[in-house]
């Protein structure tokens, strides 16, 4: 096992990786930008190296500086977490070229799977069902029109290089195709530096169901069951659960086999996730492979009892998996809610700032993978995730009730968070009934507003605070520098370019 590893990330995921490393007797090195000098991952690590200016390109995306930090501290392996350089094959290769171990899949596998059309061809040849459509990119309008006729409308234009909804367009009718293709290609070009696009059949009302896989360097591949991740805003998941309310044992077995086949087709090593779209008839289609530890991995840990980071370290050290598919238990139900610094009342506008008070929820079946603390200033430069709240219970209703309780105990003051919104989401009749499709939030929560019934209790608390806590009276606020708040200055802006 490695004596020391460097974690090329920040926030909750860096802290989470360090915790397992510490349990394994592995020393940890944090890297940080100047704005993160007091960040929790820096405070948690055995040692920390400053990378430089806050801009990601100068810090968490700067491969050379990160590799130099590993060399300087004597770290033998690099864990990339998720985001930043986690799915960058050039970084994975540079780590190996520097004589270190990359805790993740080989660079060549990552590169293959990062190209969407190449991945589709790979899966097709491995017998994994793919969404009907093109398997190579094309920009010729005549050939696109021809392919579109074959696929049928409505269809989806996608960027070969991309993800996250960039360069994606739904086309309802042949007349719209040429213009939409041009737009999508230009958007893909500016987002990924590559304007290659392809066409896929558009699936109405699908679910997003993904399978966790583990593969060692000796050809052993297992899956750790599914995660249902249909609750998304702007193509980003905010609530995940396992098991999926849509799967029975037969479908689970079929999809699990497909996920293992996908990993084998790609020559996959380490932890990965095979994403599928599932339609109402129990037909499922390969979407993509995420070649990293997923944000939502803790729910899989909750139901299987396995520590995925521990498994990643064992695999990276060249050890074979110590169990087979039949050994992997599945027990109870787990839910994750992602807690971002953002305003659900206001189009999920980011809400950076100082956390004035934070109390972490606890108790039976509750886990908070957290990256912040009271007094921490949430920086403006990075993803607004603060932490992930996970609950486990013996069945789905109990897990929902436990999450409701845990969210109510999770106090964050000073920045806006979606905690109240998440509570409403998981208690909505459609969620409770398991009717979770990718359009769930758009359909049920587009006009969500906080519960005004709670406002008067908050007003009462204001008066009680002034009476009972005079030392911290609010009147001191008047003498401070008066930065106008966002809701005073909100005016002429809109999302995106």
């Amino acid at each position: 096992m490695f004596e020391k590893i460097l974690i090329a990330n920040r926030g909750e995921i860096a802290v989470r990786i360090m915790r397992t490393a510490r349990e394994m007797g592995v020393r940890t090195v944090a890297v940080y930008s100047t704005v993160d000098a007091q960040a929790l991952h820096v405070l948690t690590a055995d040692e920390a190296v400053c990378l430089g200016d806050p801009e990601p390109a100068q810090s968490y995306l700067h491969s050379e500086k990160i590799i130099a930090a590993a060399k300087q501290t004597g770290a033998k392996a690099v864990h990339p977490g998720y985001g930043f350089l986690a799915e960058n094959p050039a970084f994975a290769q540079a780590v190996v070229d520097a004589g270190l171990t990359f805790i993740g899949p080989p660079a060549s596998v990552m590169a293959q799977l990062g190209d969407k059309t190449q991945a589709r061809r790979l899966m097709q040849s491995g017998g994994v069902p793919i969404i009907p459509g093109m398997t190579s990119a094309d920009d010729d309008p005549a050939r696109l029109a021809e392919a579109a006729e074959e696929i049928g409308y409505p269809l989806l234009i996608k960027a070969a290089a991309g993800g996250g909804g960039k360069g994606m367009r739904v086309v309802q009718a042949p007349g719209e195709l040429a213009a939409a293709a041009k737009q999508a290609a230009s958007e893909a070009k500016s987002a990924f530096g590559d304007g290659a696009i392809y066409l896929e059949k558009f699936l109405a009302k699908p679910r997003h169901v993904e399978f966790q896989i583990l593969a060692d360097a000796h050809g052993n591949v297992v899956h750790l069951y599914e995660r249902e991740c249909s609750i998304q805003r702007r193509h980003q998941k905010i609530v995940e659960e396992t098991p999926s309310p849509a799967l029975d044992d037969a479908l689970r077995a079929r999809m699990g086999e497909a996920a293992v086949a996908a990993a084998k087709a790609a020559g996959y090593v380490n932890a990965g996730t095979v994403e599928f779209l599932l339609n109402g008839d129990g037909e499922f289609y390969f979407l993509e492979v995420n070649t990293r530890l997923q944000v939502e991995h803790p729910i899989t840990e909750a139901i299987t009892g396995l520590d995925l980071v521990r498994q990643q370290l064992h695999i990276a050290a060249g050890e074979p998996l110590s169990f087979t598919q039949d050994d992997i238990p599945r027990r109870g139900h787990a839910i994750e809610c992602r807690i971002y610094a953002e305003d659900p009342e206001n189009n999920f506008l980011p809400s950076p700032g100082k956390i004035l008070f934070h109390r972490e929820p606890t108790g039976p079946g509750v886990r908070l993978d957290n990256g912040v603390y009271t007094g921490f200033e949430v920086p403006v430069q990075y993803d607004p995730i603060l932490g992930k709240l996970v609950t486990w219970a013996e069945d789905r209703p109990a897990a929902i009730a436990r999450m409701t309780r845990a969210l109510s105990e999770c106090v964050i003051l000073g920045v806006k968070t979606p905690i109240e919104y998440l509570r409403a989401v998981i208690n909505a009749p459609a969620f409770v009934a398991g009717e979770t499709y990718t359009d769930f939030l758009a359909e049920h929560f587009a006009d969500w507003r906080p519960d005004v019934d709670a406002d008067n209790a908050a007003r009462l608390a204001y008066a009680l605070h002034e009476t009972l806590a005079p030392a911290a009276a609010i009147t001191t606020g008047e003498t401070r520098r008066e930065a106008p708040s966002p809701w005073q200055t909100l005016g002429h802006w809109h999302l995106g370019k």
Partner: protein
Amino acid sequence: MQYKLKIGESIADLEFTPEEKGRFTARVGEETFAGQAHAPQPHRLHVQLDGAPALDVYTAPSAEGLWVWTQGRARLVQDAERTERRTSRRGGGGAKEVTPPTPATVVALTAEVGQRVAKGDALVVVSAMKMEFTLTAPYAGEVTAVNTKVGEKANPGDILVEIAPAEEQSDG
């Protein structure tokens, strides 16, 4: 004691009467409260309401008002009169100014001094936490100053682009 308290856009009067031993009565509109409260630790209040479940309350004062957490919900409660005074001092708030909605970094700048702009024209693109926002002209006019550069930080209230209103005031 009388308070005029603002939550979001909603303002309500609170009449609060402290009594012996942490007891109180209060009224907001039609709703009345009576009970007993104490502060067991900093940032925390425990409120036993007569005939209702107790409220566990967390508070954090800020320059903008008091952040309150109760029943799993966060609210920023502001003294409405003080907020009004502040807003009027700043000339009606920033809604008519080219300023970011949240602390951000400037990633693109299209406005130039001397440029004539129409209401809604894109002037500055800022980025916060991996999201981009386009700041647009709040009214028609001529750009008189550009107070930022690409790569610079910008906070709410910073006027990034100054515009002299067009004479005909086509501002709707």
